[in-house]
């Protein structure tokens, strides 16, 4: 083979390889917070799945819970001239200058899961987040519907005091049950979003409410606290899911396990699929120039025992929750 022929062959091969790669759409940089919780890990794995489904090249940068790492990652995405940047902001302030750089480079930024402070609204394309007030409402509506006209004393396991998610989930639930005079929250205490505290607080609720006989339902701001509360009820000789109704939020795999065993009744999903809607919005923006609304609300889906919890458990447990 002459050098000339070799060159021609290599060039053809390179062209053949390059062409489909060029056609294979977008490269998107995703600055993820880090592995702060099981939900976060699930969000990362679902984002990868959604990107693969749409043949998008998703580059994930793990910031290890540090804003400076996220800013570095965004700068490096800008330098690589990616088509779009996804950002799950670890804090809500201090993004102005780096987002301006992205704007000047004409790279659209989509916020995932969390919003940033109002001054920066024009600096990003859209934010894909869940409405935690709405999550509380969905939980409250389910309970009101299930209980019917019976009088029902509810005990509430709150999230960490001062966390906005906890305040919102409480507000939404309170709004939903305010329409029903027969539903009343009789005790409410923080379980810090953890299993251990959820169990401890539920133990005290049971003692304070005459061995748990007067409790008709438990509402927990997350599933982990509910898993702890379920153990406390079982140890007290009560039957969670039957004697006492349970409704919580997040839809982590273990609550489906409890649901399959008949020990939990309902959960409202905080979907780990924030990337899916974000990818769709970016695709529409790039193809047709459709500007998405400033806020894309994810669905707060309700799951009960009727939804084949075992199957959902099997599908969710591999996501890294």
């Amino acid at each position, binding site marked *: 083979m002459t050098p000339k022929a070799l060159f021609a062959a290599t060039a053809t091969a390179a062209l053949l390889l390059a062409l489909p790669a060029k056609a294979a759409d977008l490269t998107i940089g995703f600055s993820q917070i880090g*592995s*702060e*919780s*099981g939900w*976060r*890990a699930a969000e990362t794995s679902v984002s990868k799945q959604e990107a693969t489904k749409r043949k998008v090249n998703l580059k994930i940068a793990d910031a290890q819970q540090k804003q400076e790492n996220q800013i570095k990652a965004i700068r490096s995405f800008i330098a690589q001239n990616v088509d779009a940047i996804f950002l799950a902001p670890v804090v809500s302030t201090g993004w102005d200058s780096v987002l301006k750089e992205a704007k000047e480079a004409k790279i659209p930024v989509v916020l995932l899961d969390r919003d940033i402070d109002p001054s920066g609204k024009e600096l990003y394309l859209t934010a894909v987040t869940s409405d935690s007030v709405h999550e509380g409402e969905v939980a409250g509506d389910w309970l009101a519907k299930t209980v019917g006209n019976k009088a029902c004393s509810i005990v509430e396991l*709150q999230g960490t*005091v001062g966390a906005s998610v906890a305040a919102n989930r409480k507000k939404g639930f309170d709004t939903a049950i305010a329409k029903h005079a027969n539903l009343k929250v009789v*005790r*409410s*205490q*923080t379980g*810090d979003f*953890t*299993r*251990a505290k959820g*169990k*401890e*607080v539920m*133990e*005290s*609720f049971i*003692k*304070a409410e*005459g061995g748990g006989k007067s409790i008709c339902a438990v509402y927990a701001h997350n599933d*982990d606290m509910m*898993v*702890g509360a379920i*153990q406390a009820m079982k*140890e*007290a*000789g009560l039957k969670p899911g039957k004697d006492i109704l349970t409704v919580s939020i997040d839809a982590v795999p*273990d609550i489906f396990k409890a649901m399959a065993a008949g020990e939990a009744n309902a959960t409202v999903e905080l979907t780990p699929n924030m990337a899916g809607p974000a990818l769709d919005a970016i695709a529409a923006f790039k193809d047709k120039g459709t500007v998405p609304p400033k806020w894309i609300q994810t669905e707060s889906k309700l799951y009960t025992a009727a939804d084949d919890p075992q199957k959902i458990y099997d599908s969710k447990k591999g996501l*890294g*929750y």
Partner: protein
Amino acid sequence: MTALLPRRGLAQILALIVILAVDRVVSPQFFDLRLQDGRLFGSLIDVLNRGTPVALLSLGMVLVIATRGIDLSVGAIMAISGAIAASLADSHGLPVVLAAALGAGLVCGLWNGFLVAVLGMQPIVATLILMVAGRGIAQLITEGRIVTFSSPDLVWLGNGAILGLPVPVAIALGMLILTGAVVRGSALGLLIEATGGNARASELAGVGTRAMILSVYVWCGVCAALAGVIAAADIMGADANNAGLWLELDAILAVVIGGTSLFGGRFSLVLAVLGALIIQTMNTGILLSGYPPEFNLLVKAVVVLAVLLLQSPKFSGLAGIAARLRRTKA
């Protein structure tokens, strides 16, 4: 200096009685006890059971503090041992699980002891390293998830009962007696106190201060590991992000409430455990009271302040000083 009947425990016992009485007021069924599935059931049992992790931590912490040290890493060690226990529980027998988890605590204690006793680092800095890194190690073991298990042996350790008493409470009691027998049944306790009182003088007098310091950190690590296993067994899972979080501070508080000075030189095991019980009696009372959770920390701070003031000899003399000052002015 007495092992089981503390001479100077009056303030603590008084504080416990007062808090119990307050609990009885906010929750009339506080002293009710009944049997549920072969296990005693009631708020008093909750206090003992929930107080176990901090009581175990304080058993190790009080010895460390007696040598004029401090161990900030106990919460992180709980997370590590819990993570190890939960990861091994469904594939190995209880002896292996316990050996691995407690062994990890021992290694952590050795590390702390090495930094303090051999390299001469200040205890607060030396143990801060493991406090930060340890939780990371635990998260690596669990891969950031809550690792659950169903091994009935390990679950029994958290939720079982011996003669009606929850297993964790029995374990804590056993550890108290064991630790008491070792340090007060021999001259060991005295040597630890000597090390804390004046390390240089003790060294010159022939006390192996380095060995003393090393061994108290090891014991502290083992106690913390045991607390971690119990905490994991309790919720049938290891939550590396939250297990033992901030409990190092509760353990130090328990030791201080128990009248042990942070300057070292003397200690009481029984009073440290009593301190842990005072903290938990208060926590359980707050949960039973039905006050909004925003008040939890405030109530806790006020009660702790009151208990510490009760113990302070200066505070009781304060009235006298004020009177004297007034006299001088006049």
